[in-house]
């Protein structure tokens, strides 16, 4: 889970330093407190190897007993005169080294697909175009919160399996929403006792780094109700197939799906078979359950009662925004179009009279067939070509009206182009958005 990290105390140097900025193996650490406390966040990325190595890897390396490099700077004070420090440390050199994760153990999560024409890279992994694959997360029937959904035994102070050691629940996790079966936990554990088999740094291509955290919670069967609740099976646990191709807060939900279907390897979306695979290790989830069982039966792990119950009615609100985000629909203009059978000369004239640089090729139902730019026309003229079919670009990069302008801007930059036809789900042309229009509004 991305909302994970470790708090470390480095001890004092001589003369002492009040760290202002710090890097561990080139990964910038947060400096939330006094002189030598650092928080290494799982998603912080290495300056030298971004998207390959990050805070999650630093934590794993330390847990493995490897030496890491610390580089820190400071402004210097009368009591902390040192302004720069470089040193190498292992976990044994640290005073405290605690995993402190503010959101773990998501009760269930969405299954992700991508409706776009291009591969996208997300926190749900690599998603192939036109829904050619699907990914999901979570252990389903093995998820502790699914087995104690009313938080009868899971609360503040509950002793748990965390990263191969014993840890504790310290509260509800951020974004905890138990009523929608989307509960989360905040947890803490001593990294010095942890095992890298259950704590692994990871990198999602073109997305970022994270930390895989092994977490298990013993649920004592205190009553008949808990016996029944813990008997929950994958076919009773549902989530939604969500289109991550739409980069909005509320992404389209395509269908309801059970964890049993997700674990089968194939689901049907829009009447087509889609291969689906997990992103969290189900094999490790089973190993955790078995390890925890062994610990309890050989009396090396004692079950605790929570000292305080977790909120069972909290709601995950969206962000209050004081500025309105512009969307493509707001700036798109009507497109100048042409038909496939038109002569290049006629299109050249249209470019001049309408004073545009992009002409969109449409069929008789106004569906997108291609795009021609003034540059294409100039080249065709120079090369003596007359048929439009010889110069039209067929693989057109497009945008939908409900996408943020920011996304349109990024897409143009990625493909090094200056306009995007705006189309609907039937590929009908609704308009065009140009780099010029975008920069006017976004001011860049």
């Amino acid at each position, binding site marked *: 889970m991305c909302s994970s990290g470790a708090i470390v105390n480095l001890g004092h140097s001589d003369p002492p330093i009040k760290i202002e900025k710090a890097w561990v193996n080139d990964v910038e650490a947060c400096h939330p407190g006094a002189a030598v406390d650092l928080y290494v966040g799982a998603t912080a990325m290495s300056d030298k190897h971004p998207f*390959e190595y990050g805070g999650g890897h630093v934590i794993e390396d330390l847990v493995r007993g490897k030496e890491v490099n610390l580089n820190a700077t400071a402004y210097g004070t009368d009591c902390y005169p040192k302004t720069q420090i470089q040193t190498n440390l292992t976990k044994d050199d640290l005073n405290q080294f605690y995993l402190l994760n503010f959101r773990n153990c998501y009760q269930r999560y969405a299954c992700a697909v991508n409706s776009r024409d291009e591969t996208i890279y997300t926190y749900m*992994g690599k998603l192939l175009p036109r829904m050619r694959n699907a990914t999901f997360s979570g252990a389903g029937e093995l998820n502790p919160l699914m087995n104690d959904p009313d938080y009868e035994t899971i609360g503040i102070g509950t002793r748990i399996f965390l990263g191969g050691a014993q840890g504790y629940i310290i509260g509800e996790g951020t974004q905890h929403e138990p009523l929608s079966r989307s509960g989360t936990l905040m947890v803490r554990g001593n990294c010095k006792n942890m095992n890298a088999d259950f704590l692994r740094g990871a990198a999602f291509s073109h997305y970022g780094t994270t930390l895989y955290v092994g977490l298990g919670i013993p649920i004592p069967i205190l009553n008949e109700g808990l016996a029944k609740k813990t008997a929950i099976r994958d076919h009773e646990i549902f989530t939604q197939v969500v289109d991550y191709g739409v980069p909005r807060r509320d992404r389209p939900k395509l269908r309801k799906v059970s964890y049993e279907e997700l674990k089968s390897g194939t689901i049907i979306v829009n009447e087509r078979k889609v291969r689906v695979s*997990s*992103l*969290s*290790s189900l094999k490790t989830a089973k190993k955790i359950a078995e390890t925890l069982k062994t610990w309890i039966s050989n009396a090396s792990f004692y079950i605790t009662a929570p000292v305080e119950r977790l909120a069972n009615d909290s709601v995950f609100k969206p962000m209050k925004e004081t500025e309105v985000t512009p969307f493509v629909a707001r700036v798109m203009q009507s497109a100048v179009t042409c038909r496939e059978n038109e002569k290049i000369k006629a299109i050249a004239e249209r470019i001049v009279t309408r004073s545009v640089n992009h002409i969109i090729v449409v069929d008789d139902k106004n569906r997108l067939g291609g795009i021609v730019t003034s540059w294409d026309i100039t080249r065709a003229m120079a090369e003596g070509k007359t048929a439009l079919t010889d110069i039209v670009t067929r693989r057109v990069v497009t945008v939908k009206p409900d996408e943020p302008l920011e996304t349109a801007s990024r897409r143009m930059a990625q493909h090094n182009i200056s306009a995007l036809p705006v189309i609907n789900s039937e590929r009908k042309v609704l308009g065009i958005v140009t780099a010029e229009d975008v920069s006017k509004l976004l001011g860049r």
Partner: protein
Amino acid sequence: MVRILLKFSEALVGQPITAEIILEHKVPINIITAHVDSKGGEFLAEVPDEALEEVVQAFRARGATVSLPKLIEIDKDLCFDCGACVSICPLEAIGVDEDFSINFDKEKCVGSTCSACVEACPAGAIKSVKQNNSEIASKT
């Protein structure tokens, strides 16, 4: 067996050069994937180690381009069986066992001609590595 990648130009598409080489050199050539149209073609094939040099030379003599694709390897020490590579594989060469271990069928994999799984792996456990004898194919 060694995997070779053959590319044919437009001029060679109509000629039965693979069949000729099989008959002439008496070597089995197992075609794993093939994409051919009027503009040219690409084959991924398997040949016995001992016949590699001979086959590569025979294809080159007939005008085909030959290279040795890298093969995909999963480092089991780094892999933690998450499954991110499974749904991404177009050839279903990567699957999940009953106990949720990841299994990899090298026979189905087309190696570096695809490599979709390499960047999908969060553990950095999947790599494309050179085949043995790959120096033979780099000679011209």
